[in-house]
């Protein structure tokens, strides 16, 4: 490749006096000054959370109010930092959703361990655990950061359901087709 030698011109008197450069700088700062601030006044204004943001993992209920988790413990198994602890429990025989059979007795996510990777959401066969838009976790003690089941449901709320898997299963069972 041919080398192109550029002539380096000596600075002109105006350039050496530094004054035109100062004026240029002043123009830039003045333009900046007239623009509106780019800052977000945080506690008053909240950032817009993008779609697909991985916030705090939460447990959700389906629109009928049934807790979706069936304590299969896949999330506990897949969780890289081992932040999830599930104590499986049984749904009592006389409950309306007795055919689901299992629900977590205790579900704990240690937010001091959680790395927000989203593998639990990915692996969940029941679409029961979601990383939603909560990004600010605070607390005074270590115990507060171990989110218990109630807290996780409170944070998660109810999400719309496309399948109503267990309702369909129940209907199929009642129509004499236990295997769909």
């Amino acid at each position, binding site marked *: 490749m041919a080398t192109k030698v550029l002539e380096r011109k000596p600075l002109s008197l105006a350039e050496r006096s530094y004054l035109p450069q100062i004026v240029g*700088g002043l123009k*830039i700062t*003045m333009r900046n*000054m007239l623009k509106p*601030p780019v*800052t977000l006044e945080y506690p008053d204004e909240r950032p817009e959370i993008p779609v697909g943001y991985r916030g705090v993992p939460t447990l959700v209920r389906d629109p009928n109010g049934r807790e979706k988790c069936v304590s299969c413990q896949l999330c506990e198994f897949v969780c890289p930092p081992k932040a999830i602890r599930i104590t499986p429990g049984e749904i009592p025989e006389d409950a309306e959703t007795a055919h689901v059979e299992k629900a977590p007795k205790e579900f704990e996510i240690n937010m001091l361990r959680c790395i927000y990777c989203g593998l639990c959401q990915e692996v969940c066969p029941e679409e029961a655990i979601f990383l939603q838009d909560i990004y600010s976790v605070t607390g005074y003690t270590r115990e507060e950061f171990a989110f218990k089941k109630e807290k996780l449901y409170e944070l998660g709320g109810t999400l719309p359901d496309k399948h109503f898997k267990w309702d369909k299963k129940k209907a199929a069972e009642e129509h004499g087709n236990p295997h769909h």
Partner: protein
Amino acid sequence: MPSEVLPLIIKALIVIGAVMTMAGYAVLMERKIAGWIQGRPGPNRTQIPILGSIPVIGTFLTRLGVFQPAADGLKFLFKEDALPGHVNKFYYVLAPMIAFVPAMATMTVLPFGQYTGADGVTVPIVLANLDIGILFILAVSSLGVYGIILGGWAANSKYPFLGGIRASAQMISYELAMALSILPVFMWFGGTLNLHAVVQGQYQVWTIFAQPVSALIFLVALFAETNRLPFDMPESETDLVAGYNTEYGAFKFGLFFVAEYTHIIIGSGVFVALFLGGWTLPFVPIPDGIAGAIISIGIFLAKVFALVFFFMWIRWTLPRFRYDQVMNLGWKKLLPLAIANLVVYAIIIALIENLG
């Protein structure tokens, strides 16, 4: 005797109060301008109970940060006034006072308005109308650097010490160019050193248009004398922690701080009086009596604040010079330029006087 002294004392107290308040609000102005230039809103949270909760005005004032200087002042006042164990206690306590007093003393001879009485005699509104006003300002304002040097030395710590040394070298370098740059101005107005006479002489043409080079040199030297960026060698936050006031806290730091801003305000006032026509507007006569006095003071303050704004605008635009660049600029550029400027204007003035 007391009947003569009392009004003077009252006048002095009013002026001191006004300048101190202006210094406080200059700090706010600086923080606001810094914010705006950097795309931030600046201080906008401080509120005082009753005034701040008035629906529209209170919110507006809070957003503007008007209550911030009061909060800052109270903080300086009520913080523990720590005295580090390794300092030279006498000089350590003395230094902020020495920095503060000259800053305040310079304003005694700075006229900031005019009053034309019923007898048609125009007198300047000033605490002391000295005939050698500008000499007094130059002499006393450069005393302020002793506070900085003393503070840097008494703190017995390397960064303040370096800050103090830089302050002394810088002050000496720029004092010369500063004094030489304004000599042509006083020659232009017939050899008087009285600031009031200089302002009256600028009724038609401001000196900045008649002597732009003098104005430029004086402005640059003023930046250096007031330790403002791009010449804030004594403070140099980025390389000397906080320079001469590293070891100071609470009210002593507050005194240094107020002294710095007072210097800026007084310096701007001197520049306005010398180059920007003082309290006059071109071709607009100032009415007689009290109304004229208030109008002239208003014009003067507006000009001073425009210049203080310029100081801050420059600060958030330019980076700091390196120390050797400061020395180069002072000794090799500004001083010869000031001398050449003096000679050229001496010749021009001599020609005008002899031919005209």
